């Protein structure tokens, strides 16, 4: 595959021999992985493949899960979940500021809301937001903490197709501006190829495929897509075959 242009110095996330199991069933099996600082990585896998388990391990919220291995991650980590997880009893701005203090917190919160296109909605209740708006607010909540690592667990899974496209553009734009390392867990191959610079496929507890996506390179979206679908064991008749992608 095309080599990644940016040479990255120290890894933001480093996994060595990471193993996790639920009731004797091994979900993550001795995984070694480095995520370079500033890289946008997508983690693909079938449901139940352990991709969320890996993300939760990196986030440090896998209480009570048996496992071993070493794991280093940056100090400032933000997580975006599949649901926006806004506290229904707080307005949007206080939700964005959850766990944040300091004199300039409020100003930063407003700025983050403005960046995700929710400027002026500071005083709205979460129940007044649409699904896409709520997820934007969740993005603002994770951004405002200026994370070195952004973990996203199928953040667009519950959105409609049109909103999802807009959110893809927004996430990519935010990443380009702030440059955190991103680990995006998804089961959507297109989403992974559109957004990420590197795509991992998790299967049977191991990383089966580690693919660099070079948008400037000779390979088309369709080729990456076909390669990843094949790795996931999905036979896609027609659309995945080499040739012009459906939507160039």
């Amino acid at each position, binding site marked *: 595959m095309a080599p990644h242009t940016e040479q990255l110095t120290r890894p933001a996330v480093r996994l060595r021999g990471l193993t996790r199991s639920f009731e004797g069933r091994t979900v993550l099996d001795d995984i070694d992985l480095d995520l370079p600082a500033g890289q946008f990585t997508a983690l693909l896998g079938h449901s139940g493949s352990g991709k969320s388990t890996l993300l939760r391990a990196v*986030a*440090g*919220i896998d209480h009570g899960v048996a496992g071993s291995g070493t794991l280093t991650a940056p100090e400032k*980590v*933000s*997580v975006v*979940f599949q*649901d926006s*997880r806004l*506290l*229904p*009893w*707080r307005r949007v701005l206080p939700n964005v500021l*959850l*766990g*944040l203090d300091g004199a300039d917190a409020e100003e930063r919160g407003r700025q983050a809301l403005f960046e995700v296109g929710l400027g002026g909605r500071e005083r709205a*209740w979460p*129940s*007044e937001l649409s699904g896409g708006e709520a997820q934007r607010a969740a993005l603002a*909540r994770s951004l405002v*903490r200026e994370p070195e690592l952004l973990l996203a667990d199928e953040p667009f899974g519950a959105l409609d197709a049109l909103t999802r496209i807009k959110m893809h553009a927004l996430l990519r734009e935010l990443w380009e501006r702030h440059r955190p390392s991103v680990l995006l867990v998804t089961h959507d191959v297109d989403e992974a190829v559109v957004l990420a610079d590197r795509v991992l496929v998790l299967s049977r507890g191991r990383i089966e495929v580690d693919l660099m996506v070079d948008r400037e390179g000779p390979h088309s979206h369709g080729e990456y897509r076909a390669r990843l679908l094949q790795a996931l064991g999905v036979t896609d008749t027609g659309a995945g075959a080499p040739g012009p992608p459906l939507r160039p």
Partner: protein
Amino acid sequence: MTAVTTTTAPAPPAAVEEEEHQVRRRRRLSPGRRLPASRLLGPALVLVLWAAASAAGRLDPGAIPAPWTVLETGVRLWTDGTLPDDILTSLRRAGSGFAIGLTAGVVLALASGLSRTGEALIDGSVQLNRAVPTLGLIPLFILWLGIGETFKIAIIAIVVYIPIYLNTHSALSGIDHRFVELAEVQGLSRLAFVRQVVVPGALPGFFVGLRLGVTGSWLGLVVLEQINATSGLGYMMFQAQNYGQTDVILVGLVVYGIFGLVSDTLVRLIERRVLSWRRTLSS
């Protein structure tokens, strides 16, 4: 834009045209729009019937005195000072018992909802306490505390704390796990977590308990004052029963009713204000 609209416009072929028929609205199965001030309509009708029957002499004034007789008796009792005294005594009892019960219920629920040790010590005991009907404790409490005010306040406090504890505790332990995870991810301290996530999340449950507690305090009051008291509204009604004064009993019932209505309305108003974020769901 216009090109699009022409394609979406329905163009039924001629063959189907004769089967086409006007859409008729389905019969509505929901009750429809609410009448204005509908809740007051029923009580008002009862009052009118009562007054009419009394005026027509169809009611035995010894059993059910006319509405105006009740009103006159009320005014008389109020002006000679007995009614305000009795009301004050009753309110003081209910108020003290309620305040103690409320505090105990909330403190115990927090202690048991926020720590496993607290839960182990408290929850089982409260569940046991709840299994014994509180009014059944009256004889024991009279022996312990005498028949003074202390015993009455104690019983009311127990009647109040149980529903407040139960509902607050179940709301605390039912906090959405996803919010706990969020608080961890956002790096909230334990105190901030309790203040910003647990307490607001448990408030709806607390208010259910609070309303039951308020109702309970009046119920306890009535029972206590009618068996063991020398003052208060219940005592006034008990005396009236001995002398066959139905109008006085009805005055007492009206006052109890006002107590209940006012306190429930008050709790509702506070609830509306505190849980204003929920209003957006129903509106």
